[in-house]
């Protein structure tokens, strides 16, 4: 694993370990993981359930401190919650009393961004993610996919240079999920944001990413890094049909099968 602390990395995880201490036991969630993500790169992270993927994203965002090792984000060591990122969780986590648009604008209000500019940017994102017509709907009036789009817009409002996504489409049906993948791919192509995506879907991880990081069973170690040899601009069905896609997904399935012992 490369542990070089290049100033060129958007995210640099250096020899990080995380141990949780509870009354009953001490669990090591992450063991000496190192990872470099280049600016503008899309990296997917896959691994067995409970191996420490969410923990890894929380480390990068500064919501969690490592027990040892260090994390550098955009050239600056992470010491507490970082504000220069966008975060999307598995559940949309929307404020139920705010409309879709005002949920997106929460990001701006918390940051004290100028409201005129934030409004313009929100409208742009609403259009880009196909939420037009639902700006004033309350979360419980939106479908799961729409709620997740609102969460994505909220994470992108302040044009973060790094976007962290923790199983953002896990609760969606297969078809909506494919649509969201296509949308996310386009958003990523348009914004040039660095993305770290945790997912359980092997197809999703390959379709979207430049690289796929496969983690082992807890404590998480980097088992293998798969370079995805696909073109930058990816049409969904054409990509699915490519031999490189098939090879990469087969390899990941193999690795995950091997680490979970189901093979």
């Amino acid at each position, binding site marked *: 694993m490369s542990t070089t602390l290049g100033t060129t990395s958007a995210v640099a995880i250096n020899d990080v370990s995380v141990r949780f201490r509870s009354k009953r036991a001490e669990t090591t969630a992450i063991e000496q993981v190192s990872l470099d993500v280049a600016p503008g790169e899309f990296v997917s992270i896959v691994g067995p359930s409970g191996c420490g993927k969410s923990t890894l994203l*929380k480390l990068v*965002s*500064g*919501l969690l401190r490592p027990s040892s090792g260090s994390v550098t984000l955009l050239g600056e060591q992470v010491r507490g*919650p*970082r*504000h220069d*990122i*966008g*975060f999307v*969780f598995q*559940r949309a*986590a929307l*404020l*139920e*009393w705010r409309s879709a648009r005002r949920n997106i604008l*929460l*990001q701006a*209000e*918390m*940051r*004290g961004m100028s409201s005129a500019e934030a409004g313009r940017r929100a409208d742009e994102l609403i259009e880009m993610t196909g939420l037009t017509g639902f700006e004033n*709907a*309350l979360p*419980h*009036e939106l479908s799961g996919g729409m709620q997740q789009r609102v969460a994505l817009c909220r994470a992108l409002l302040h044009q973060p240079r790094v976007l962290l996504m923790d199983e953002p489409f896990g609760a969606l049906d297969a078809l909506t999920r494919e649509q969201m993948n296509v949308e996310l791919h386009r958003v990523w192509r348009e914004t040039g944001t660095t993305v770290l995506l945790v997912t359980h879907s092997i197809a999703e991880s390959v379709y979207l990413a430049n690289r796929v990081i496969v983690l082992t069973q807890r404590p998480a170690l980097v088992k293998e890094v798969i370079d995805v040899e696909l073109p930058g601009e990816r049409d969904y069905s054409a990509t699915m049909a490519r031999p490189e896609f098939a090879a990469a997904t087969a390899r990941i399935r193999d690795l995950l099968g091997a680490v979970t012992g189901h093979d």
Partner: protein
Amino acid sequence: MKPVSGDRWRGVAERSWRPAALLAACLVIWHLITVTGLVEAYLVPSPARTFDLLVDKWSYLWGHTWVTTYETILGFVIAGVLGVLVAVAMVYSRTVESTAYPILLFAQVIPKIAIAPLFVVWLGFGFEPKVIVAVLMAFFPVVISTVTGLKSVDAEMLELAATMGGGPVKTFVKIRFPAALPHLFAGLKVAVTLAVTGAVVGEFVGSNEGLGYVILQANGNMDTPMLFAGLIVISVVGILLFLLLDLAEQLMLPWHSSRRGAAVTTLLAKGGT
């Protein structure tokens, strides 16, 4: 937007007819008990006599109703403000929480009627002791419901707020407090009915005005119609204050009540299937 479902007023009527029918049945039974002479008239007056008296002595009752309502509202507002402040302090400080909880619990379990005379001794026969008893009655549900509400906030939402960098004040104003409002309103509705009881208990102990005084006087004079009239007025005051809060909740939290169901449900749904 709600799924389209008929006329709103028809919905209210559908929900109201059961409790209304029950109320009518109670009145009929009350009437029958008195006309058949099952119970002596001086023990239980007939509904007709009671309502006659309500009309005849309205100006007398009205003055006392106003006194009790004033004490109730004052006590309720003080309890509401104090309760929310204490709850916020408890949620944000472990030390405050562990220090305040036993005292709160003690203040709650001590019978108010047993300490009410003490306030009369200290503060005299004015409205102050009644307000204090009302506050003591109403305070606890406000604190408990607000603490529950503030703690019910989604942990991920708070993590998200941390990445947005708004600081604790903005996080409280924009996320935590609004999220606690449904719980807070539930507590306030319980509190307002308890505040009525508190004010009346305060009046029982030492007073020369208010509905508690009216009932005590009527009791002393064996004036059961007046006693019943006083009871009815007290209930009406309590119910109206409760409905007022229910309405405030619907206006302030349309996002919440639209899912809970419309108009006066909390009170009337109990009569439904």
